[in-house]
C-alpha cells in the first residue's frame, strides 16, 4: 500500500515537473501584458497596444497547454509513451469541461492506467506492430474522451451551476460569510473550476457596479503562493531545497496574482496545504470585504493595486492572509517532520 502511494506521488510529481515551466511562462507573460495595458472595468484594454495583446496571447496559449501537459505526463509516468495520447486528450477535455487541475490529475491517472492495461493485452505476433501505433492510441483516447466528456463532465458542470446560484443568492446576505466562502473557494483548487467560479462571480459583479466582491477575491487570489513562499523562508528546516525554490517562484507569482504558484506545494501535500491556504485566503477576503476594498479589474494580487479602492486596507488584507497561511502550514508540518526526521528519539 505504501509502495502504491509512493508510486502515485511519483507519477503526480512527474506531471507537475513538466507543467511548472508552462505555468511560469503563461502566468508571467499574462501578468506583464496586464500590468502594462490600460485597465478598464471590462478588463485590460489591448485595443491600443497590439504588442501587449501578442504577449498576452502567447501567455494564454501556454496556460491552455498546461492542463494537457500535466495530465499527459502523469499518464506518461504510469504507462510510458502510450500514456501520452489519452493523457493529453484527458487534460484538454478537463480544460474544456472546466474541471481544472483536479480534473486533469484525475484524467492523467485514468489515462495512464487505461494505456497500461491495453499494453498488457496479449496479441498474436502479426498484430503486435499495430498495437502501439493504432490500437492503443485510438482505444485509450476514445475511452478517456468518453469518460471525461460524459461521465465526469455533467457532475462538474452541475457543480459549477449550483455554486454560481448559491453565490448569487448569498450576496444579499452576510458579507463576512460571503467573503469566507469566496476566499476559501479561490484557494481550494488554485485556479481550477471552484476558484474560477468565485473569480467569474467577482468579475461579473464589476459590470454590475459592485467592486467589493472582486476586491475580496483579489486579496484571496495572491495569498496561497505568497503564504507558501513566506512559510519556506520562516522555517527553512521544514522544507526541502526544491520546495524553497518553489517558494521563491511562489512569491513572484503571488505578487502578480497567479494562485497557481501554490500548486507544486498542494500537489505534494494536499491534506496540510489546502486547508492552510483556504483559511489564509478567507482571512484576506474578510478583511478586504469589511474594509470595503473595491477592485475595478478582473485580476488579483498586488499587481492590481493601481485600480483598487482603499489601497491601505487591501495591502493589510494581503499581508494578514499571507502570514496566517505561512504560520498555519508550518504548524501543521512541524509534527509530521518530527516523525520522519533524523533526530528520531526512542521513547
Amino acid at each position, binding site marked *: 500500500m505504501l509502495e502504491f502511494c509512493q508510486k502515485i506521488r*511519483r507519477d503526480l510529481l512527474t506531471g507537475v*515537473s513538466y507543467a*511548472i*515551466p508552462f505555468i511560469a511562462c503563461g502566468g508571467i507573460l499574462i501578468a506583464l501584458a496586464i500590468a502594462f495595458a490600460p485597465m478598464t472595468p471590462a478588463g485590460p484594454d489591448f485595443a491600443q497596444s497590439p504588442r501587449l495583446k501578442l504577449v498576452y496571447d502567447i501567455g494564454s496559449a501556454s496556460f491552455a497547454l498546461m492542463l494537457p501537459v500535466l495530465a499527459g505526463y502523469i499518464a506518461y*509516468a504510469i504507462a510510458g509513451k502510450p500514456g501520452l495520447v489519452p493523457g493529453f486528450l484527458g487534460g484538454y477535455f478537463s480544460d474544456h469541461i472546466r474541471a481544472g487541475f483536479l480534473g486533469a490529475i484525475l484524467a492523467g491517472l485514468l489515462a495512464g492506467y487505461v494505456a497500461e492495461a491495453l499494453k498488457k493485452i496479449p496479441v498474436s505476433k502479426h498484430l503486435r506492430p499495430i498495437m502501439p501505433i493504432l490500437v492503443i492510441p485510438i482505444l485509450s483516447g476514445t475511452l478517456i474522451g468518453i469518460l471525461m466528456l460524459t461521465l465526469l463532465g455533467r457532475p462538474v458542470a452541475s457543480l459549477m451551476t449550483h455554486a454560481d446560484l448559491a453565490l448569487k443568492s448569498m450576496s444579499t446576505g452576510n458579507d463576512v460569510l460571503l467573503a469566507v466562502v469566496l476566499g476559501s473557494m479561490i484557494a481550494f483548487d488554485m485556479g481550477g473550476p471552484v476558484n474560477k467560479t468565485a473569480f467569474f462571480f467577482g468579475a461579473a459583479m464589476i459590470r454590475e457596479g459592485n467592486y467589493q466582491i472582486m476586491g475580496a477575491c483579489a486579496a484571496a487570489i495572491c495569498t496561497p503562493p505568497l503564504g507558501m513562499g513566506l512559510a519556506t523562508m520562516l522555517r527553512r528546516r521544514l522544507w526541502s531545497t*526544491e520546495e524553497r*525554490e*518553489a517558494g521563491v517562484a511562489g512569491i513572484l507569482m503571488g505578487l502578480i496574482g497567479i494562485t497557481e504558484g501554490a500548486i507544486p506545494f498542494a500537489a505534494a501535500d494536499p491534506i496540510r496545504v489546502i486547508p492552510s491556504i483556504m483559511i489564509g485566503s478567507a482571512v484576506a477576503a474578510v478583511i478586504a470585504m469589511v474594509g470595503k476594498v473595491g477592485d475595478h479589474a478582473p485580476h488579483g494580487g498586488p499587481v492590481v493595486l493601481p485600480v483598487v479602492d482603499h489601497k491601505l486596507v487591501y495591502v493589510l488584507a494581503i499581508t494578514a492572509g499571507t502570514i496566517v497561511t505561512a504560520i498555519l502550514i508550518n504548524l501543521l508540518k512541524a509534527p509530521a517532520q518530527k516523525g520522519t526526521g533524523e533526530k528520531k528519539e526512542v521513547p
Partner: protein
Amino acid sequence: MKIVAVTACPTGIAHTYMAAARLESTAKTLGHEIKVETQGALGIENKLTEKDIREAHIAIFAVDIEVEERDRFNGVKVIQVPLQEVLKNPHNVFAKIHR
C-alpha cells in the same frame, strides 16, 4: 564494483545535481566506479550508454519522479530510493547493494 545511477527531482534544478555529486563522492570513498545520469529541468545529461548499463553490476535510482527511458535498465538489478535518502544518508543507500 561498477555502478550506474539516475537522479531526478520534480523541479530539476538543484536537488538532482546535489544528489549526483553526493553519489559520486560517496562511491569514490567506498572504492566503487560510478557514472551518474541526471534527469533535471534541462532533460537527460551525462546519459548512460548501453555499454555503461550492460557492464554495471547494479543501478541506483535516487528519484522523486518517474525515471525517463526506464526500459534501458531491463535485466539490471535496480535499487530505488527517494532522492532525499541520498542527501541524508548516502552510505545507507550503498549498504543496500550487499543486502
